[in-house]
């Protein structure tokens, strides 16, 4: 065998191995999605949106309580987490820069926070926000989700702002603009699609969290909109229903899984589309 022939064969082997690995990954993803869609669509009906939870065997049983609870938990966490994340990211990029020690420490810490197991964050919030009050609450869940969301938005904002050319900032200053106006009107504006992508990915990430909610907002099988009380979420409801022995509850679990996955999937797709649009510009 000549040297060239050997090289061609090795090339083919490497290509086949990597294609095979990619195929295995995609196959599992498609499998999960298929099962989810088959069982999910089967379980979806109008009752799900019309009724709260009910004991097994009841016809009028749904996910209304979990959908509303989930929307409140995610909505309020987003309202708190997004401004904090964007402002902190702005500090890192515009006031700290790449040379500031403090900014780099914050960067490292948020990188660690991003990969911290969410159950750890859940038990932390349990210790400071649930145990002292003696009961689970929606607010505790919101605190946990916000803690998970902030580092994601902070780091994306930081990265996106650093992509804004220095000359653009200087051009703002050269016209006599004070720093806060350059940041608000030029830099943040220039990075807005990138930041929006970060926000969407951050929201998508916390939407699927279960472990921290088990420790904090816990669950309620009926509709509750008082955040100082335990409140239902799609994820915890799904966990309870899916692990129950009753077939109709398991069906509701599939419905919850389907709705949640579709929500997260569309956030991710929207984020991707924004990124593509940004690159085209």
């Amino acid at each position, binding site marked *: 065998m000549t040297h060239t022939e050997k090289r061609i064969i090795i090339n083919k082997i490497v290509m086949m191995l990597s294609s095979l690995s990619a195929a295995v990954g995609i196959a599992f993803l498609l499998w999960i999605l298929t099962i989810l869609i088959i069982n999910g669509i089967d379980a979806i009906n109008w009752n799900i949106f019309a009724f709260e939870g009910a004991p097994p065997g009841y016809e009028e049983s749904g996910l209304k309580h979990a959908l509303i609870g989930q929307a409140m938990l995610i909505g309020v966490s987003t309202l708190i987490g997004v401004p904090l994340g964007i402002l902190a990211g702005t500090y890192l990029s515009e006031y700290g820069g790449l040379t500031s020690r403090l900014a780099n420490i914050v960067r490292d810490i948020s990188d660690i926070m991003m990969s911290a197991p969410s159950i750890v964050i859940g038990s932390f919030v349990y210790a400071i926000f649930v145990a002292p009050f003696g009961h689970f609450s929606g607010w505790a869940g919101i605190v946990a989700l916000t803690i998970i969301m902030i580092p994601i938005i902070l780091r994306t904002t930081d990265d996106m702002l650093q992509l804004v050319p220095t*000359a653009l900032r200087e051009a703002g*200053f*050269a*016209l*006599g*603009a004070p720093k806060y106006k350059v940041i608000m009107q030029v830099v943040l504006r*220039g990075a807005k699609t990138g930041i929006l992508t970060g926000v969407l990915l951050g929201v998508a990430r916390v939407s699927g969290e279960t472990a921290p909610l088990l420790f904090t907002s816990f669950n309620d099988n009926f509709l509750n909109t008082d955040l100082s009380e335990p409140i239902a979420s799609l994820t915890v409801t799904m966990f309870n229903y899916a692990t129950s022995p009753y077939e109709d509850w398991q069906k509701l679990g599939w419905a919850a899984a389907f709705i949640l996955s579709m929500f997260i999937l569309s956030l991710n797709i929207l984020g991707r589309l924004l990124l593509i649009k940004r690159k085209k510009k």
Partner: protein
Amino acid sequence: MATIIDVPEEKAIQVNNFEFTYAGVSEPNLKNITMPIAKNKVTALIGPSGCGKTTLLRSFNRMHDLYPGNTYNGEILFEGRNILAEKEDMIKLRTQIGMIFQKPTAFPMSIYDNVAYGMRLKGIKNKTELNDRVEKALKDAAIWKETSDRLKDDANGLSGGQQQRLCIARAIAVEPEVLLFDEPTSALDPISTQGIEKLIIELKEKVSILIVTHNMQQAARVSDYTGFMYLGDLVELGRTEELFVTPSEKLTEEYITGKFG
């Protein structure tokens, strides 16, 4: 040893024994520079890469203040005051001395808002006045024809040459006394370059201009006075036609005849 002529015209700016040092550097990056900048004339700065011409240009609107640790010495006199003084108001200075950058720096907003940006900073809110001044600035920057029917469009949709003229419109809209051009055509094609050069010559009726350029032909085409810089020194400043034909300094002659640089 430097040969610096004095200008017969009124001076927009007078630089005396100016030195500049970047943060963390022990030797000054610009050494003992003394030069006049004539009013309503174009003064060009030429020299090899790294000679300090952009550093000098960015001292006139104190852009170096944006980064910590840089130090100025000597004086830059403008309208009877030393703009290097502690108490100098950066916002006022930068509306009096405007700047055009190497790459077009259109803000991520509409064409109209780009031009109105500096005026709004100055507190002009009256719609009619803003409209009039935006139109005038765009006309003065020779870009009105291409933009008059799409003022609300995103400025990033314009071509590079158009964006650069938009940046010039934005800078002249606040009616500065002096305009600093930092290699304004190095990112542009030849036709856009020609347009910008023509514009620079027209603009000197209203403002005094200082331009940094890599391109000696450009300096010869647009400027009245040319300064040659080398390793942080201003080697020679003279009338452009004299400096390019009969330079006084040997170093200048070697540079313009292409012996180095």
